[in-house]
């Protein structure tokens, strides 16, 4: 199945999980002093190397124009669509939140922290934070933004009955203190230098004090919510008194979701929509021949990986895992499954765009004979082994079939179990002996490793355990010497690649298709549609 096979009941999708992972990673990294600096540094490197624009690149030069309306389409929506930032879970929700609300901070296209509603976020000890708000910001209903709104917006995440996605994240914000209308103080339960990044999460959008009704949105954002129908559409009209100068350009924007990729592309081609997010690599051949369409491609650290749990059969036999690594035909996956919108990877999560990427670590060649020998050695050759895959993990079914076919040719029968995307992350991911996962970009190796590979990592997909590895990670955190750190990270990458049960065949690119009249969309390493915030930045050109 293709990368975009998302259907409307596919509520669990990567963006939600992705954010949860970011949150978790940052939370776990709280003890580290210089995280913030590293984040910014690696972000620059990544954005520079990863964002590739096709024809849209030319648009950078053009002067933005005001006026016009567009309809844009994402790929998933449901009745669970919400304007409550705490509950936002789909790309659709993020796009809406970004257009109707603002955050205290945000990450720009270089993944650097920028101030939005906050004028400054400061701390001496990373435990007590002082946040000063921008003056003269008003909500759509005319009310001026004060610290009360911010405290309300943040505090409600701690209330379980709100059902916030950022509940765990918010728990660390122990107390909120209003200094005056523009200044507040947050005291954390433990020092965390990353609070500015945490505050840039989509869930921490600022809403007006006391808001409980989210049938419409009362925010400070670039667009006012005119219509909102869950699972159908939202319409935003320009906020004439928006505090960012000259923004937004569009008079209004309608956002919908078309789960069926073919339908989404067709709607773009027939002119019904101006932006179709996430198009199938197989549609690109057609779209490239059409003048009225521009493609925006982002290659980042996103990958779908094949996980073998090392703590249970058959992954408890190392030869099986090694054999499987030789059996995964990365070239076929990159070429046939991803239609070349991918870069071959080497079983470790640090992307080639990262400056800590280990250039010397080569991907394993496809070598079925070697794999066969290893399987034989492990005593599993000929056993039928199930591989769990789902449309929930992008392209995992196709990848599974590539592995399955390769296995069939050496007498190793894999049984691909396609399971519903609905409930995949809670029922199969991390649980099945051999299954697929899908991991989105992280700004630093530290976050990736502590999230996915340390012995106590919450999402240790293959149950990789190595005291040495854990120690090295802590060591790297405290090392300010770049060369030394690179050395440690290089070795850690080798360890993961050789010893962990996570097979990462390729890095996956995201392609959004847009009408060539739509300008101003820049790729953002955090996701398609300019990291969901495109609405206020794009304009229509005749």
């Amino acid at each position, binding site marked *: *199945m*293709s990368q975009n*096979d998302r*259907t409307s*009941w596919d509520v669990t999708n990567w963006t939600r999980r992705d954010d949860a992972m970011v949150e978790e990673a940052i939370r776990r990294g709280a003890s580290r002093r210089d995280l913030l600096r590293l984040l910014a540094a690696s972000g620059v490197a990544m954005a520079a190397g990863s964002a590739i624009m096709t024809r849209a690149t030319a648009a950078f030069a053009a002067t933005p124009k005001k006026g016009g309306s567009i309809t844009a389409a994402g790929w998933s929506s449901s009745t669970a669509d919400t304007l409550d930032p705490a509950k936002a879970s789909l790309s659709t929700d993020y796009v809406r939140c970004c257009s109707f609300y603002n955050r205290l901070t945000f990450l720009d296209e270089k993944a650097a922290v920028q101030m939005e509603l906050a004028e400054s976020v400061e701390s001496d000890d990373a435990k007590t934070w002082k946040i000063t708000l921008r003056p003269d910001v008003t909500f759509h209903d005319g009310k001026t933004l004060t610290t009360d709104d911010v405290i309300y917006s943040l505090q409600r995440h701690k209330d379980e009955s709100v059902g916030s996605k950022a509940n765990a994240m918010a728990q660390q914000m122990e107390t909120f203190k209003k200094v005056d209308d523009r200044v507040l103080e947050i005291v954390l339960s433990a020092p965390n230098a990353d609070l500015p990044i945490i505050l840039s999460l989509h869930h921490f959008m600022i809403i007006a004090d006391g808001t409980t009704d989210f049938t419409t949105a009362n925010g400070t954002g670039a667009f006012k919510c005119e219509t909102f129908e869950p699972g159908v559409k939202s319409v935003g009209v320009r906020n004439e008194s928006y505090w960012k100068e000259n923004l937004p350009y569009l008079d209004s924007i309608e956002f919908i979701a078309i789960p069926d*990729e*073919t339908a989404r592309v067709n709607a773009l081609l027939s002119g019904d929509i101006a932006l179709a997010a996430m198009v*199938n690599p*197989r*549609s690109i*051949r*057609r779209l490239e021949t059409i003048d009225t369409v521009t493609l925006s491609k982002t290659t980042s650290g996103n990958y779908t990986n094949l996980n073998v749990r090392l703590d249970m059969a058959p992954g408890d036999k190392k030869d099986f895992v090694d054999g499987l690594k030789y059996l995964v035909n990365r070239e*076929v996956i990159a*070429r*046939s*499954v991803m*239609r070349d919108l991918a870069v071959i990877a080497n079983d470790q999560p640090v992307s080639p765009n990262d400056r800590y990427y280990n250039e010397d670590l080569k991907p394993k060649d496809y070598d079925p004979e070697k794999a066969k020998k290893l399987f034989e050695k492990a005593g599993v050759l000929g056993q039928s082994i199930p591989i769990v*895959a789902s*449309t929930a993990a992008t392209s995992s*079914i*196709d990848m*599974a*079939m*590539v592995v*399955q*076919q390769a296995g*069939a*040719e050496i007498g190793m029968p894999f*049984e*691909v*179990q*396609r*399971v*519903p*995307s*609905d409930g995949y992350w809670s029922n199969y991911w991390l649980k099945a002996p051999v299954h697929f996962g899908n991991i989105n970009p992280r700004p630093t190796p530290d976050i990736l490793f502590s999230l996915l590979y340390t012995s106590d990592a919450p999402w240790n997909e293959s149950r990789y355990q190595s005291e040495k590895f854990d120690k090295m990670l802590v060591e790297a955190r405290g090392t300010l010497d770049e060369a030394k750190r690179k050395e440690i990270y290089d070795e850690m990458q080798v360890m993961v690649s050789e010893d962990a049960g996570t097979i990462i065949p390729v890095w996956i690119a995201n392609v959004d298709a847009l009408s060539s009249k739509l300008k101003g969309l820049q790729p953002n390493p955090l996701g398609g549609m300019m990291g969901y915030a495109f609405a206020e930045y794009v304009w229509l050109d005749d």
Partner: protein
Amino acid sequence: MKALAASARRRTGFHINTVGTIGAAIVLFWIVIAICAPLLVPYPVGKIVDFDFFGPMSQKFWLGTDYLGRDILSRILMGARYTVGIAFAAVSLACFVGVALGMIAAVVGGFFDTALSRFLDALNAIPSLMFGLVVVAGVGSSIPVLIMTLALIYAPGSYRFARSLAANTNTMDFVTVARARGEGTVYIIREEILPNIIGPVLADFGLRFVFIVLLLSGLSFLGLGVQPPNADWGGLVRENLAGLPYGAPAVIFPSIAIASLTISVNMLIDNLPTRIRDRSA
């Protein structure tokens, strides 16, 4: 007139017209394909054999290649197993359950009949695709689950149909005679009712078969169906739908396969061999 009809019927045997013959031939063709598929496929179904995707028809790949570059001919041949097999199993199960219950309800009557009819009618009111989705979302998609679900969806219709036929037959004098003789319910159902409704039941079987093939392809469209690397025909159409703008054989041929099977089944049941028709009359 009566004597005429009688003399005509005396010349029995099975007479089938051209359209029916063509239909029967195509159905038979697909059944043979379904049985022999593993012997016929030129390439393994899961093997990516072409660098290109949505490849055109060629000497090497008769029906082109699919979105991954796999041979479509092989996939269609193997797909026949699943489409024909699942549909056949499901329709058999649905008809068996539906017809058995329908006959019992018609013969036994009374509260059993009323309660069962009411209950199955209510089930009928739930849209079938929706029902399939709920079940498959709940218990996952495996062939037995698919078969059971499809059967469950179509059993109430089969029940209704069989019940009304059996109720008609049940009023016939020969059934009354059997009852007056003291025969039990099982005998009446098996020997007196069943042989007399089997013709229309077979026709109904065919029609339901068509609907199940389509429903199965609808479920595949929504992403539920046979486990990879195999796919039923609906699944083939679905996974290659992106090839439609390219006019790819990968999407056209599976569609033709579905249409050829359903159309031929229709042709066959519309032109059933005359002997079977006479029974139904």
